[in-house]
């Protein structure tokens, strides 16, 4: 296992930022720490990067202690800070050449510039790059030393759609090469697309973890959700399908029965009889949104979900 956190807690004075967090991340997988802002994601990842000591618990990165063996780990770990870390006057090529000089064996700065799409911006000072270009440069910096583990704190924050596609394809390539990729995000769409494993953190605690499909089917469903024209006659629908139906929000309906093929058929034929357009139908499988909202709402927080 490339990264292990066991009962890890991190405190700032009296404030407990990370509370007995346990998880593992393995090589050749993308592991996502998902949670709202202030959930403890950055504290956790900065501990693994060697910046924050734990107040209790233990952790290991490539079999070493991230704090006491920090010097040894710097050659094998690539990181991307949530913000800053790069001199405002430096040029992308210069920056990658500088860091390439710190490693016994590094990627070629020119190749890396091309991979993150910054070849034609290689002489532009950092401060004049767009937010997305700055993030891509920061990601390139994480990769320059051919790391075995990469820690990326909000890698797609402030990146436009095109940039996101590029970052996503780079991360998938790293997974292919067998790198252990650990990222933090509060972006559900990104998580659903990328994650092999999701660890949902809120208020410093792990509230769920597993593969996206495990999480999305974690609770065996006892209801059917569908979307259609608003203001349907729910009483008539309930009578027709033999189970309680209600409109949960504008044009969103919920039928209180296990989503058997018979129930699905009954609902759709009732809609068909009245020629009502069905916009979506969700049975067993929930969307990660639903899981995330349900879990974080119950612990009283506001999960932001900018897609």
């Amino acid at each position, binding site marked *: 296992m490339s990264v292990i956190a066991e009962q890890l807690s991190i405190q700032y004075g009296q404030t407990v930022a990370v509370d007995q967090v346990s998880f593992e991340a393995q090589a050749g997988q993308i592991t996502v720490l998902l949670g709202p802002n202030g959930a403890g994601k950055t504290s956790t990842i900065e501990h693994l*990067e*060697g*910046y924050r000591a734990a107040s209790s618990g233990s952790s290991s990165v490539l079999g070493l202690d991230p704090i006491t063996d920090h*010097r040894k780990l*710097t*050659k094998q*770990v690539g*990181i991307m*800070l949530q*913000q*800053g*870390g*790069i*001199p*405002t*006057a*430096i040029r992308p090529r*210069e*920056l990658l*050449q*500088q*860091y*390439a*000089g*710190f*490693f016994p064996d590094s990627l070629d700065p020119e190749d890396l510039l091309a991979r993150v799409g910054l070849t034609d911006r290689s002489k532009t000072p950092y401060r004049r790059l767009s937010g997305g270009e700055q993030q891509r440069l920061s990601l390139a*910096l994480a990769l320059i*030393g051919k790391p075995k583990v990469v820690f990326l704190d909000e890698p797609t924050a402030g990146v436009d759609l095109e940039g996101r596609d590029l970052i996503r394809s780079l991360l998938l390539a790293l997974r292919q090469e067998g790198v252990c990729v650990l990222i933090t995000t509060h972006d559900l769409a990104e998580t659903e697309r990328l994650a092999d494993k999701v660890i949902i953190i809120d208020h410093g605690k792990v509230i769920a973890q597993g593969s996206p499909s495990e999480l999305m089917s974690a609770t065996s469903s006892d209801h059917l959700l569908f979307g259609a024209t608003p203001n349907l006659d729910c009483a008539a629908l309930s009578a027709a399908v033999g189970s309680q139906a209600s409109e949960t929000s504008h044009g969103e309906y919920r039928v209180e029965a296990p989503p058997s093929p018979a129930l699905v058929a009954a609902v759709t034929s009732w809609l068909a009889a009245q020629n009502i357009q069905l916009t979506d139908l969700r049975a067993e499988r929930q969307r990660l949104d639903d899981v995330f909202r349900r879990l974080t709402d119950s612990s009283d927080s506001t999960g932001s979900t900018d897609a």
Partner: protein
Amino acid sequence: MKAIRSQTRTELALSSRQGEQLLVSLGIPLLILVFFSSIDLLPTGTEEPIDFLAPGVLALAVMSTAMVSLGIGTGFERTYGVLKRLGASPLGRGRWVMSKIATVLVIEVIQWVVLISASMLLGWSPPLSGWVCAIAGALLGTAAFSGLGLLMAGTLPGLATLAAANGLYLILLLTGGMIIPLSELPAPLAAVAKLLPAAPLAEIIIGSLTVGGSVASWAWVSLTCWAVIAPLAAALLFRWE
């Protein structure tokens, strides 16, 4: 060695691109040298103003690079998380410090070459025998002022370092015996100045590079103390984030 070379190259490239750093490290000393040697306004106490001003600005150059440029540059690097990011690279603190020292020394050599050339064009002819002491003084001064610069950079926010380093520079420029001899200052002020690092640095460099001059022993004692205490304090109190 490769890592130190890489880091030093970047440091020098970034320094050369900062207009205000160039102004402080070369512009101001050159201006003082040329202006006050052609217009005999300052009470230099020497027959030719250049004989006092030339070694004086060599001392000033050491102070401006080691304290002002290094302090302000490092202070902003700390504020912008540059030091934090470097901390996660294999460079390491030891090699980072060595790169900073190398950068300061390279800039000082360039300053001295330019200022000595300009001074000689203005008619300065220092005794050859004085250079060993002058360079020893410059190295002690570099240690002392680098310590002060890094102490400010490592404990104050970036903008506060900018203000403190520039403020201290101005005070030490006027009271440090670099462009106005200590003998011209009120006695109590001169006594205090001798305890600060600028006056002993000026005393050593000017005393060594003046024909028939000598260096008072208080200067070596005072500057050596600063050269030990300031870097030590910086090492103990420096916060990386």
